[in-house]
């Protein structure tokens, strides 16, 4: 189809699509008038029954924990998928370079200010990430959010110009193993619930007192596993992309 024919097809289709969506949404209660009975029950029972004050976390890891296992495995498979899709092909090679710029790549130099600032931020970022992962059951945050913050510390290192040094310190197999460990830890904790109380993902660890760091039973441990997995997966993602851009060159040169 030529582009013009496509536009002739698309314009009425999109108009119809928009119209149908809006028409369907008129059946919704207005935003702000939500009446869900399930949500109300959950909001009422989360703290008394699970001793965790962050209800969203409780929903994510307890009421609907099985969804989160699936979601974590999606992240895991995508990291594996990236390894498959971005791997070295026949006809390519990984360059060994001494400085941070691969041959033929015209990257602008990094300013001193950026280097110092980025390096200085790495430590606080990691600390912030760990804090958010650990307090997932109490305040907004948790394994996903904290894991991503942890992974951005790698980007800060890249900005500071020390990428190749970092590359030698964190080989990809170690990250793959760490990420897989996080993923399997979640599944195994669920299995623990199966063994201890006969139901998969049952919250079988003593619940502790609300508002303390170990409250919520399995919830803080699940979020630790997720934090490990998310940090590993995103670091792997960044490494794969940065390798492709900075290091992989075709064998014919340039």
């Amino acid at each position, binding site marked *: 189809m030529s582009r013009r024919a496509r536009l002739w097809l698309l314009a009425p289709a999109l108009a119809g*699509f928009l119209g149908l969506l809006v028409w369907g949404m008129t059946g919704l209660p207005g935003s702000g008038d939500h009446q869900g009975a399930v949500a109300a029950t959950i909001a009422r029972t989360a703290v008394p029954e699970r001793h965790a004050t962050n209800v969203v976390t409780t929903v994510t890891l307890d009421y*609907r*924990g099985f969804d989160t296992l699936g979601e974590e495995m999606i992240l895991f498979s995508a990291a594996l998928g990236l390894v498959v899709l971005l791997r070295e092909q026949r006809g390519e090679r990984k360059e060994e370079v001494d400085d941070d710029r691969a041959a033929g790549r015209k990257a602008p130099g990094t300013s001193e200010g950026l280097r110092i600032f980025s390096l200085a931020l790495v430590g606080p970022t990691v600390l912030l990430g760990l804090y958010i992962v650990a307090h997932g059951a109490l305040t907004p945050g948790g394994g996903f959010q904290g894991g991503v913050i942890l992974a951005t510390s790698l980007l800060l290192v890249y900005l500071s110009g020390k990428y190749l040094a970092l590359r030698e310190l964190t080989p990809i197999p170690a990250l793959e193993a760490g990420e897989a460990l996080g993923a399997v830890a979640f599944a195994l904790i669920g299995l623990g619930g199966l063994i201890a109380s006969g139901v998969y993902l049952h919250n079988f660890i003593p619940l502790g007192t609300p508002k303390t760091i170990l409250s919520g039973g399995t919830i803080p441990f699940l979020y630790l596993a997720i934090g490990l997995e998310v940090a590993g997966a995103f670091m792997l993602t960044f490494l794969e992309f940065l390798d492709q851009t900075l290091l992989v060159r075709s064998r014919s040169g340039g």
Partner: protein
Amino acid sequence: MNTLVPLTVAVPLIAATVLAASAPFASRRFADGVSLAAAGSVCAMSGLLLAHGGDLVYWFGGWHPRHGLALGIAFTVAPLGAGLATFASAMVVIALLFSQRSLAEINNVFHALLLVFLAAMVGFSLSGDIFNMFVFFELMSVAAYALTGYRIDQRAPLEGTLNFAITNSIGALLVLTGISLLYGRTGALNLAQIGQALGTRPADALVVISLTLLVAGFFVKAAVVPFHFWLPDAYSVAPTPVCVVLSAVMSELGLYAVARIWWACFAGVLGGDRGAVEAILVGAGTVTALGPAVLCFAQTHLKRMLAYATVSYIGLFLIGFALLTPDGLAGTAIYLVADGCVKAALFVGVGILQHRLWSADELRLRGKGRAMPYTAALFVVGALALASLPPFGTFLGKSMIEDAAVKAGYGWVIAVFILASALTGGAVLRAAGRVFLGLGGAGEPEPSFEIDREESDEPETDDPRDRTPAMLFVPAAVLLAASLALGLVPGLDHAAQRAAAAFVDSAGYAATVLHGAASHTPQVAGPPPPTALDYLYALLSVLGAFTLAAVALLRPVRVFAPAVMRLRMLHSGRVGDYVAWLTLGVVAFGGLFAVTLL
């Protein structure tokens, strides 16, 4: 028995993570062993769940419903879902066995991805919660994208995977929008509870649009016309073991989802207008069955031919489901499994040709297969099974659907079934005649299409041999035998009918899931055995296949009617076109549903 339910998903996931973690230092033997053990155990566990009969409800985290409100996620294991799970795991076992020989540069990551794919399919078939189904749907898709793009060093897989990923992501977004609308109305994510809540008010715009969005989104995965354009691109470039699983199971799961959601959620509120829904879906199924069947016949690249055949059969399964009766559903279930086995066997056959002769193109392979009698037999038997030769399982399923169609007043779909099976079976017969007997005219593969044909047909292994290894041939033979067995096992049709009758019982389903009522399988009289008319129809399909193949072999290559040429041009490989057709499809279904259901 209850403990088995979560294990069917947890075991392959844990095995996949172990394989990924040990990838740098584990041997190929270890990976093969672990993955086969995991997939085999899932097959055994799902088989046990299937044999259990009745509905099993499993609440994760121990969150049982309170006052009829479902707080947690439930798996509702019905015989139809468990049957699909067993079938999916069996296909993955076959794919693992087959991949040991057919893919050279395989490593643990491939096995891990295949196991994750399996876990997602099993979870999808067993889940009773709509958002949980969405999560497994996305997990299936992500693993499928990675597996399809495995030979990323070539251009065709790259484009195929892109088209696959982009269109299916839009499908997922449609599903999610539908889920949000339903949640806004009902406040629930559990299928049974949604059904209860929707049933309290008459149908309105929201119900119709959420049905449209869910149906359209899942039809993208199932590749119903006009959402199907991505499938030939993707299935013709995926590694052959992956094609086995994709073609036999993944597309069919899209239809299963629509069936599940229809009977659990919408049958109550829209039941009065069933006739309209039947008509629309039968129409969609007919278009999906016939157009791609013609295109299948016009193909000379074997994998692309089988991909179009897959779409055509999805159309036939859709017709069977669209009758919205237990008999039609039972016939569809049997037809689906039997046909899946045959398609998988044919894909394995193509893999054998690629392994020995370095190509999958009919014209390029003309006459080169003369020294491969067993593979030839494989293709011929497979083609006849596609054309529903008795006593294959395909014949049994098809005759059940035909009987159900006549009872529902849709007798004319029999002609659609005959035409589609004749075209697809005839295409494979023609290919077999050309490759193994050297019949038919010679011709160059079309240069204007498929520019990189040589690249995309590179062998997937590095060592072609003179003999077909047993590891490649045996899975195909087993699959064909399984398809035959399905037609011969006594009482299978009766069991399928009972399972279907329980599946369509929306009120009973809600009672079992939300109130813990014991599930009871309704007593149904066994279906009558195939009648003489059914044999006649099957005979017509088989004769039609032979005639079409013979006619094609006698005429010069590549002479197509202009209409067929235009249809082929539509499948342009450009994702922008596909997205435009997708949008049109959503509007078409939405408009039809709106006009007929309100």
